[in-house]
């Protein structure tokens, strides 16, 4: 590879000195430093995850004990939501729609992409910052605005959006004001993602350190790169759809409104001529790639943690990279597997079933590679590794249960039941969320210079693993029994659901148990910032470039521009004195150290 001129080291110091003069606001709030922005993203994302979890704990009360008054919190929420402490169906629907929206768009994506991507990616490629620091800042603040708009929507008359996170028209078009807020909020979030993804792609392509050729990139960087492409190309259609839905709601147009609608016995004031399925196409054109946006960064994090803690190279790194790209590309042409029951004929269904089956193969390949990486390792069971290891079978269960959903005939009994809820929660909750926890425990020392407590970490891990399965495993039973999702009473109205409904109580108790199991984490997180064990630059004895920077890294990241001398996972190289050979040490440095 051609040698690249990078700025000499003294310039870095100059920048560093200049940085000292930045005031509090420029340094910590309106910062353009990728690390600060990453942390802002991560903390905001975590808070939203917590909030989204809060919403669902409320829902789980109603699902376990339909109609029963919730002791004191219920009254607190007021008469428009929980009169006398008993939940209204309107409010249940708001909670459901906002739980989905918040978890996906304001929790996981900002944490996985905005947080980890921003903090780790430039460090891992040896860059001083993102390619466009100001755009990076704009991306965070756009996200922040979007988040605030969504939160505010709970307080408009009629409450927040209540047409599901999918916002299917016509229901969403005739819904109350909360839906308008949802749309505006989404437009902010989409803008944020677009700005962010452009930044990630340019940064990865352009700011790689000397010697860091593409096939020396850590797998995490690859996963962020592909994720960014998905965001970049899949989000604009939802933006277009959002604009059209706004037009329908505010401008009286009929993009998604067919002719002849009669709502509550009144002929609806729409001229008609629109098509409700158009919304679904545009929504799923985003939302299917979006689910891979939720999982690919998780693959990336897990790969880093596994390579580091098995003390051996990832198995099949190149195949994993190719699979990743293939997965990314295919994810654009499988979306209609969410729409099998919208009146689809044989050829269309066959096409989308086939692409869906095809896309499962690269997932199998990546997962197999991660499983095989364990073989022959010298495995350290620290907290990040426990979360990463748990990710594998949990994602496996989620992914495998995607297969019957992907076959249209097998999907007939399963579509829109709790089986689907079970499927995707296995991939996003014990899957992605666990991977994110692994990432937090893994990179915390880099961000703060201190390790999180192992004891509290394990106290976080084991109960979380048990409870989370307690929530989601019974969902498959409910789903097979035919219980629909999004039911305010959890199915109590239906006789056929009666034999399985007792599980609802079990699931809810597990969910509250899971909530309690997060307390050690929250304590650990905040305590360790101040009191955690102090560590050096490379506490995990890792090989990738971020560990060449001081912990926490200063403004500009590296004291001298790092150079990559080898691939990312050179662990346990035969004949080498230590069991790790970092990318950033030259042969001479190795010899003298």
């Amino acid at each position, binding site marked *: *590879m*051609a040698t*690249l*001129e*990078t*700025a000499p080291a003294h*310039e*870095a110091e100059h*920048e560093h000195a200049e940085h000292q003069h930045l005031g509090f606001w420029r340094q910590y709030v309106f910062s353009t430093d990728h690390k600060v922005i990453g942390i802002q993203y991560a903390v905001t994302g975590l808070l939203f995850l917590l909030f989204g979890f809060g919403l669902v704990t409320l829902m789980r009360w109603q699902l376990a004990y339909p109609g029963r008054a919730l002791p004191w919190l219920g009254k607190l929420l007021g008469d428009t939501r929980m009169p006398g402490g008993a939940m209204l169906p309107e409010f249940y629907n708001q909670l459901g729609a906002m739980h989905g929206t918040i978890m996906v768009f304001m929790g996981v994506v900002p944490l996985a992409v905005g947080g980890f991507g921003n903090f780790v990616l430039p460090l891992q490629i040896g*860059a*001083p*910052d*993102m*390619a*466009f*620091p100001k755009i990076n800042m704009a991306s965070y603040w756009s996200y922040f605005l979007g988040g605030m708009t969504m939160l505010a929507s709970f307080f408009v008359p009629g409450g927040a959006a209540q047409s599901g996170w999918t916002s299917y028209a016509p229901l969403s078009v005739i819904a109350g004001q909360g839906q308008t807020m949802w749309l505006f909020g989404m437009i902010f979030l989409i803008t944020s993602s*677009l700005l962010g*993804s*452009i*930044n990630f*792609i*340019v940064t990865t*392509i*352009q*700011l790689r350190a000397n010697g860091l050729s593409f096939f020396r990139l850590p797998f995490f960087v690859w996963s962020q790169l592909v994720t960014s492409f998905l965001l*970049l*190309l*899949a*989000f*604009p*259609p939802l*933006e*277009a*759809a959002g*604009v*059209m839905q706004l*037009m329908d709601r505010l*401008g*009286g*147009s*009929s*993009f998604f409104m067919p002719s002849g609608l009669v709502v509550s016995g009144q002929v609806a004031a*729409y*001229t008609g*001529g*629109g*098509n409700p399925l*158009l919304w679904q*196409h*545009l929504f799923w*054109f985003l939302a299917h790639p979006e689910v891979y946006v939720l999982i690919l960064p998780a693959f990336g994090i897990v790969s880093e943690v596994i390579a580091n803690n098995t003390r051996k190279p990832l198995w099949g790194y190149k195949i994993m990279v190719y699979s990743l790209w293939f997965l990314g590309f295919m994810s654009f042409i499988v979306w209609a597997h969410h729409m099998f029951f919208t009146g689809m004929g044989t050829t269309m269904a066959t096409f989308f079933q086939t692409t869906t089956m095809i896309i499962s193969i690269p997932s199998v390949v990546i997962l197999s590679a991660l499983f095989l990486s364990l073989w022959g390792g010298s495995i350290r069971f620290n907290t990040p590794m426990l979360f990463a290891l748990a990710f594998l079978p949990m994602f496996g269960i989620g992914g495998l249960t995607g297969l019957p959903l992907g076959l249209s005939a097998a999907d007939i009994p399963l579509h829109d039941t709790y089986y689907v809820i079970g499927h995707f929660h296995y991939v996003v909750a014990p899957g992605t969320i666990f991977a994110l926890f692994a990432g937090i425990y893994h990179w915390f020392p880099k961000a703060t210079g201190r390790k999180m407590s192992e004891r509290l970490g394990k106290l976080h891990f084991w109960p979380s693993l048990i409870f989370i399965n307690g929530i989601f495993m019974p969902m498959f039973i409910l789903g097979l029994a035919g219980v629909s999702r999004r039911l305010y009473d959890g199915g109590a109205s239906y006789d056929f659901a009666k034999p399985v409904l007792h599980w609802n109580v079990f699931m809810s108790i597990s969910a509250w148990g899971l909530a309690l199991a997060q307390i050690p984490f929250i304590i650990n997180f905040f305590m360790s910032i101040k009191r955690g064990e102090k560590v050096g630059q490379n506490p995990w004895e890792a090989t990738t470039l971020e560990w060449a920077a001081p912990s926490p890294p200063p403004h*500009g*990241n*590296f004291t001298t*521009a790092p150079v990559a001398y080898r691939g990312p996972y050179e662990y346990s190289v035969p004949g080498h004195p230590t069991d790790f050979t970092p990318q950033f040490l030259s042969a001479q440095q190795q010899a003298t150290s």
Partner: protein
Amino acid sequence: MEIPFTVAERPDTGLNNGKIGIWLFLASEVMLFGALFASYLMLRIGATVWPRGDSILNVPLATVNTIVLISSSVTMVMAWASLKRNDFGKFRLFQGLTILAGLCFLGIKYVEYSAKFHHGLLPSKNTFLAIYFTLTGLHGLHVIGGMVVNGYLWGPGAKLWKTDPEHFTNRVENSGLFWHFVDLVWIFLFPVLYLL
């Protein structure tokens, strides 16, 4: 450390950061307008009747607007070429013309819109008008956006020319790419909405 390749090209990719950035942005714009064109197609194919554009819309005005926008693309590229020739005065001229053409486009659009509003031809009337207003409205917003950037580079942003001419030229090139893209979208909007 300074961020590398903001001005100079990275040897192995042959590109500077801004250039890739703007192209990625345009890629997302392609998908944005792509989705709207998809909606147009789907609505039109599903419609029982679909008016010919010229039965409702003002083709002569739109033709003039097409010419205006194409001309502005030429002046834009000439503005950039002037910088390449080190002729800052010409740049000011051409860039100014580009902005004026943008204004002219918006003026004509305003006349078109107000005539529609006047006759009660609103997005709520039928899906043709709905998609017409959405597409042209969004396109209009892009024109405004492009003009703001071009105006900045014509005015306060031009200070950069004195300190870092190459960086400034790159900026003009990138804003030009965006402007041409806006033109390109119109090139498709015009026949699709007005002529078919």
